[in-house]
């Protein structure tokens, strides 16, 4: 037999194991190669379904955009952005459009515009233009290229301002600071620097819906929600973190850090010193980073004391190089149009990488000049911050009181420009679907845009974020009347 059919002998004889190993290996390799080649050029054959979906016509030879730009270009399906778009199309106006949609979805504040207006009209031009020695206006001080990470004077002023609003217990070093064009690029740059493509960040949920866009669009970093519950007043616990961390590891994704907002957004509660200690200890144990978004640090109106992660980091107990802080002036100084934010990091490499990346999102020099004089005007800042806090508090009490009379409670909160409203009693069904139905009803019947918990990845349905700081006092009764109507029709 061996002589007659030598090939068969080779295959099924001793050689079987060897050839049997080699052939499938080759096949597997070729398959992988084939798949890889197929995957990267999704376009050339005009029949590929992917390309048909995307381009409007099917003309051959039409040039395509990159596959990662496609999800960016697509209209979003998050209720947060849908709501914002709807308001833009039909905004409420007390005079001209009384039936329009009232905006409770955007965390901006007009409470202290009078103070800002006064300061700007007195100082705006002077602050921007540096006079040279002979009294002539010197345009080159604002027109020329300056360091991307921000002028040193601005970083000094920022450091001073931050330590002032955070209670003066902690001082910030300007050399650890990079000025960015707003909080959004600050978060993106940090995510880019701390995690590689495919890595993940743990994030206590409910969280700010914009993080999805900020982090996922370009950096390819995943967000893993760590669910917090109403029974804990939505405060994160170490055991929940631990559980999420282990689950992520089991699934094979590498966790690079924890990201959280303090005061939290959308709930508005403040993390206690103990919780911060716990989080940092947890991060140290797992050897991961901590990103603390403290963009609402100056908008604290409650009685609880705000503690910055920076304060905990320098307590000496921990390795501070894993701590990174995001701050910005959009909320606390109510100047989002200025697009001024800060990355504050204790890690030298992160600071240096962020400096280089600021070639893509630095703050224009004239704006920096305005900010320098604004932030160094300590008398104004003191006055501003005091009335900012006072006025949020007043508005908060008025708003929450109004809801309470309708039988709608809010979560306990101490900071932020919003409150976290419990509308579970208005739900038709206790589910995500029920919540989105209520959201739709709020938008089209009551004409109110509030952000539903689903958009914030809240695990319990029925919670809504309402931003109240852009409202006039006389708007509040209008809102309450609209909600009352909705509530009555829902309960009947």
């Amino acid at each position, binding site marked *: 037999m061996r002589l007659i059919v030598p090939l*068969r*002998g080779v295959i*099924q*004889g001793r050689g*079987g*194991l060897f*050839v*049997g190993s080699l052939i*499938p290996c080759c096949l*597997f390799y070729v398959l992988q190669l084939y798949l890889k*080649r197929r995957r990267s*050029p999704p376009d050339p054959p005009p029949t590929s379904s992917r390309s048909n979906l995307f381009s409007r*016509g099917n003309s051959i*030879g*039409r*040039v395509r*955009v*990159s596959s*990662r*730009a496609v999800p*960016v*270009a697509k209209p979003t399906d998050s209720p947060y952005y849908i709501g914002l778009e709807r308001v833009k199309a039909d905004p409420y106006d007390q005079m001209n459009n009384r039936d329009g949609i009232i905006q409770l979805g*955007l965390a*901006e504040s007009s409470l202290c515009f009078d103070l800002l*207006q006064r300061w*700007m009209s007195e100082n705006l*031009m002077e602050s921007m233009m540096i006079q040279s020695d002979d009294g002539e206006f010197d*345009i*080159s001080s*604002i*027109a020329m*290229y300056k360091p991307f990470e921000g002028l040193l004077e601005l970083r000094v002023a920022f450091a001073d301002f931050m330590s002032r609003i955070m209670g003066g217990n902690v001082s910030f070093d300007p050399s650890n600071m990079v000025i960015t*064009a707003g909080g*959004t*690029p600050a978060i993106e740059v940090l995510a880019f620097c701390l*995690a*590689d493509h495919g*890595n993940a960040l743990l994030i206590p949920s409910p969280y700010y819906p914009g993080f999805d866009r900020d982090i996922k*669009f*370009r950096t390819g970093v995943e967000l893993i929600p760590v669910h917090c519950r109403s029974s804990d007043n939505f405060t994160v616990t170490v055991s929940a973190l631990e559980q999420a961390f282990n689950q992520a590891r089991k699934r094979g994704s590498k966790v690079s850090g924890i990201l959280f907002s303090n005061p939290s957004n959308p709930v508005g509660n403040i993390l206690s010193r103990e919780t911060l200690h716990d989080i940092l200890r947890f991060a140290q144990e797992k*050897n991961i980073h901590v990103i603390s978004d403290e963009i609402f640090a100056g908008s604290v109106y409650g009685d609880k004391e705000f503690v910055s992660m920076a304060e905990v980091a320098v307590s000496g107990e921990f*390795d501070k*190089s894993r701590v990174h802080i995001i701050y910005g002036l959009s909320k606390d100084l109510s*100047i*989002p*149009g*200025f697009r*001024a934010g800060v990355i504050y990091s204790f*890690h030298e*490499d992160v600071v240096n*990488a962020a400096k*280089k*990346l600021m070639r*893509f999102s*630095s*703050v*224009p*020099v004239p*704006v920096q000049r*305005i900010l320098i004089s604004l932030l160094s005007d300590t008398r104004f800042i003191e006055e501003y911050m005091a009335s900012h806090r006072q006025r949020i508090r007043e508005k908060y009490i008025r708003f929450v009181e109004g809801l309470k009379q309708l039988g709608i409670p809010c979560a306990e909160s101490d900071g932020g420009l919003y409150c976290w409203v419990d509308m579970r009693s208005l739900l038709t069904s206790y589910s995500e679907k029920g919540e989105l139905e209520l959201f739709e009803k709020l938008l089209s019947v009551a004409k109110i845009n509030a952000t539903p918990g689903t958009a914030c990845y809240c695990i319990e349905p029925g919670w809504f974020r309402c931003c109240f700081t852009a409202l006039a006092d006389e708007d509040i009764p209008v809102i309450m009347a609209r909600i009352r109507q909705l509530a009555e029709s829902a309960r009947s």
Partner: protein
Amino acid sequence: MTRTGIYRNRSGTSDSETSGDDGGGGTTVMRVIVPLQGVVQGRGGLVLGSVIPCAFFYFLQFYLKRNRRDEPEPDPDNQNSASSPGSEPNNSDSSSELTVLSRSLSRVVTSPRNSGTHVSVSGRANSILRGGDSPGKKRVEEDPYDELDNPDGIIELGLAQNKDLVSDYSKEETSIGLSLSGIASYEPSDGLMELKMVVARLMSEATKNTVSFDPSQLVLTSGAAAAVEILSFCLADSGNAFLVPTPCSPGFDADVKWRNGVEIIHVPCRSSDNFNISVTTLDRAFSQAKKRGVRIRGIIISNPSNPMGSLLSRENLYAILDFTREKNIHIISNEIFAGSTHGDEEAEFVSIAEIADTEETFDKERVHIVYDLSKDLSFPGLRTGAIYSFNENVLAASRKLTTFSPVSSPSQHLLISAISKPEFIQTYVKTNRQRLQRIYSEFVKGLKSLGIECTRSNGGLFCWADMRGLISSYSEKGEIELWNKFLNIGKINITPGSSCHCIEPGWFRFCFSNLSEKDVLVVMNRIRKVCETCKSQD
């Protein structure tokens, strides 16, 4: 019948080696006694032999993939590698496992890089830390030239910005129209319509109004760097590549590669062609890349070119556009110096938009333009750039991505009030051209009297000087030596050709628009000094 024959056959061969025993009876006994062997070497052999190596191969790939991702994190070039013992992850891990040995979880030991206190940054951040800065920048920052206070300091000729010309803005010009309500609140991050209209008008002015730009096709960004970054994100996936004719602007590496992971394939142009882009070399580079399995998504050109300052001719633009159509790729035309042309009247700037306008609609979709107000208005501190595209999808994606590189409202209002008057734009562009022309001819004349020739240029804030005669060895090393001489002896910072990826050594870029006429004399004297030291060494 045949089947049993095969069995016997097979087991016969295997046994002949292991035991030396031959014959059918012996093997059956063996099969019964050692069932495992029977399974392995019997029928199951082929199946197991297939499955096991497959599994091995899969695990090997999996392992490699995991390892590769961790690899760049410990960075040997970085100083902190001393403090974080991570330059060889496997070694340090195994050693820590040996010394500590307290935990048996091997996974924990391998996956975080080390149990030390330092937490490391992402691999891609590390690669940014390494790359980047233009070489002379630090030196200039430490010791800048000042006519009165520091006459021995280093003169910056490496930075394309326009200082002398801007001082003409009057204070009123920039100061009208700033009010709080306009600048403080949230506004669309891709720019106000009013500003877009002004930018469109400015772009038209640069083409002497032969093209009209549609403001709705504009997306404003914080500077041209961000515009290039956003465009390359939208046009290419990670691992894809752009063709870039060299010498090119030194900034492209950062803009295209850093965060997008898009590669650049340089297409060298030579002095013998006067550094013109030829379609044949583009074609060759394209097919070479294709052979290597790299997917080319587009081509990035600068017009007026940086660093040469030459204008691309209409024929050349047609040829390049035809090339992109043939290959079905995109084209990014970097026109940030469009308003900074100077020189003869017959040298006219032609925007790619003009060429695109003659094309079919769907073909226009491959054309994208980067513009920068800061260069043309000599106002880089304002950081306002723009993307002009004919592609709806690119525009939609770019608009969203501008949240990461927004133009701030005060800047926008400042620009609107400064340049919204049409007369102002006209006068400005005209004056700017005249002054550039004056300083350019003076500078080039000065260089010529020192025996240094420049290529003919009609745009940009710089000239491209041939100093091949001054370098000691015709190599990149020789070029860097000369650059060092300029920095240390002449105290002048210029851009060497190697920074622009020029393949011929000995070419340098001089940015002259920052100089006053008095400065030109100082610069020429310093260059003469450098020339003399070069010659005396020969």
